[in-house]
């Protein structure tokens, strides 16, 4: 059974600072009880406050930046869990479980450019991604700046978190907003099309994407249609982050490398998946996928998720 990574630990961490970021976000900086070696981009940690019982379940966050002994997380305030974390103060103690998950593949240079598609707070795992690609990952050839492009989209300017910091990394950064308040008016996929049409990007690219579900569904569809290498960093609900609750299923593609079982566990088998291995498309909105609408429980056919029953 897939297990959490061997370097993952349950640690306490002290809040160093909580700085507002964008319209509804914060950058939470913490210092874990032990200094961690360099964490691969798009790995994540489970975080919760320890001074209260509720929220009970820690929440997953990608590591945004790592500076010496300090870890930074970019949080968009959504509900109870993120609000509690955003309201913590310097000196507060947090529970920190990680580093968890697999992270981006080695973003080596010399091949097709890596085009990174970030949507809203889905931009968090790209800061380290760009840094680590430029530095070289797993002993592979470092990527040159022009071999990377960051396409950053959000509903409006105020939701493009820490844009200047991304620009300061020195790789091409292109922005898109739904309302046109910053950069291209439209979404990151529209932006990608215009960059292709203007010959600012070669047709053959390798895609990395992290963002809201509808965006990732569209990225998956595009990658499949154009047969592009594509990796998605998924944000499912998570009950534990360490593979013990079965609360984070991602539908596998029956014909793909993980197809022996209908679900992958996002926490221990992801959060980064190759498009050939999983699918985000819901039954009913499928395009050429052999999967059918969920039906009642058919234990002999484990590729059919069950509906309408309670149970552990």
């Amino acid at each position, binding site marked *: *059974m897939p*297990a*959490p990574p*061997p370097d*993952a*630990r*349950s640690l306490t961490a002290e809040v160093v600072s909580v700085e507002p970021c964008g319209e509804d976000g914060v950058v939470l900086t913490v210092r874990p009880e032990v200094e961690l070696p360099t964490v691969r981009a798009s790995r994540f940690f489970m975080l*919760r406050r320890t001074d209260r*019982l*509720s*929220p*009970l*379940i*820690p929440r997953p966050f990608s590591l945004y930046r790592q500076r010496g002994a300090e870890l930074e997380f970019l949080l968009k305030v959504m509900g*109870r*869990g993120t609000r509690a974390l955003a309201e913590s103060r310097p000196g507060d103690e947090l*529970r920190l*479980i990680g580093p968890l998950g697999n992270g981006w593949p080695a973003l080596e240079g010399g091949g097709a450019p890596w085009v990174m598609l970030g949507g809203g707070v889905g931009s968090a795992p790209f800061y380290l991604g760009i840094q680590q690609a430029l530095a070289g990952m797993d002993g592979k050839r470092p990527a040159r700046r022009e071999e990377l492009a960051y396409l950053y989209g959000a509903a409006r300017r105020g939701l493009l978190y820490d844009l200047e910091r991304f620009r300061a990394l020195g790789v091409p950064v292109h922005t898109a907003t739904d309302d046109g308040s910053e950069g291209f008016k439209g979404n990151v996929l529209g932006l990608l099309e215009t960059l292709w049409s203007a010959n600012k990007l070669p047709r053959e690219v390798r895609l990395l994407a992290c963002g809201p579900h509808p965006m990732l569904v569209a990225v998956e569809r595009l990658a499949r249609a154009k047969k592009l290498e594509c990796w998605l960093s998924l944000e*499912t*609900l998570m*009950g*534990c982050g*360490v*593979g*013990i*609750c*079965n*609360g984070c*299923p991602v539908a596998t593609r029956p014909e793909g490398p993980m197809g022996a*079982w*209908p*679900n992958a566990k996002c926490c*221990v088998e992801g959060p980064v998946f190759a498009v050939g291995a999983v699918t985000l498309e819901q039954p009913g909105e499928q395009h050429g996928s052999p999967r059918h609408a*969920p039906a009642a*429980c058919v*234990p*002999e*056919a*484990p*590729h*059919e*998720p*069950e*509906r*309408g*029953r*309670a*149970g*552990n």
Partner: protein
Amino acid sequence: MASCDLSLRIGPLELRNPLLSASGTYGHGLEMEFFTAPTELGGWVSKTVTLRPRGGNASPRICETEAGLLNSIGLENRGLEHYLAHTLPVMARADTVVVTNIGGESVEDFVEMARRLDGESATDAFEVNLSCPNVQGGKLPFATSPALAAEVIRAVRAVTHKPLFAKLSPNTAQLGEIARAVEGAGADAITAVNTLLGLALDWRTRRPGLATVQGGYSGPGIKPVALRCAWECARSVAIPVIGCGGIQSASDALEYLVAGCAAVQIGTASFSDPAVPGRIAREMGALLSAAGIARVGDIVGTLHDGRETLQGARSR
């Protein structure tokens, strides 16, 4: 200060301490090794294994509420063959008591599972999941009928000599009767309890928190309910009761022992922090030692509930 002896026996099983993992909350093997190693606990209880693989329910499968967690995992598991080939061999190497939790849709399923597992030396005991809200249309037939619960246990008893824990549901008004029925049918212990049926929804979007709408409620919010259930079982039977529900701390666990449980299981608390079960084990030892208690069994069933005057009530 002498340190308290935490070891105990449940039937023929020797446990190093009274803390077990709760089924479905501690993984399918050694996921927890670096957080709470199986050797820190008295026993490891597997996620429910079913005869055939089950893909589980649609998402969302979990939904946190104010004081607990709703789940509708749907007993996702790769089935008995996979368990025999991949999970048991791994757990056999872990130095702890291995309890295989078995689930089924019919008496025959349970019997077939127990028959197949009986020869496996790696399994020290069975926990018979009579209480999954996920079989037979969510009606919990085995968990709400003393006769059906007894029928399952009797049938399983007939095919194995291994110790049997009957895992009961809080979703019944007949818990005492059911506890007595499974004891009469040959159970060696009772696990009390599984999740409560529950529901969460968002009135603005009109959407339920779980894809299955209703699910199983666990965590701190259920502790008073589960503790009462465990107490009712303990006062109804002479076999050991293993308490389960909402335990977050060593003092929570000790409350269950005082209520009459020989041991406890820790579930949802492991999701808050997978190192919690090990920490509770250490803290329990420290608390009991500080209270001058020599053996953990000395506090079992010591609640002043009027029952302490009954002859033999604490004979186990």
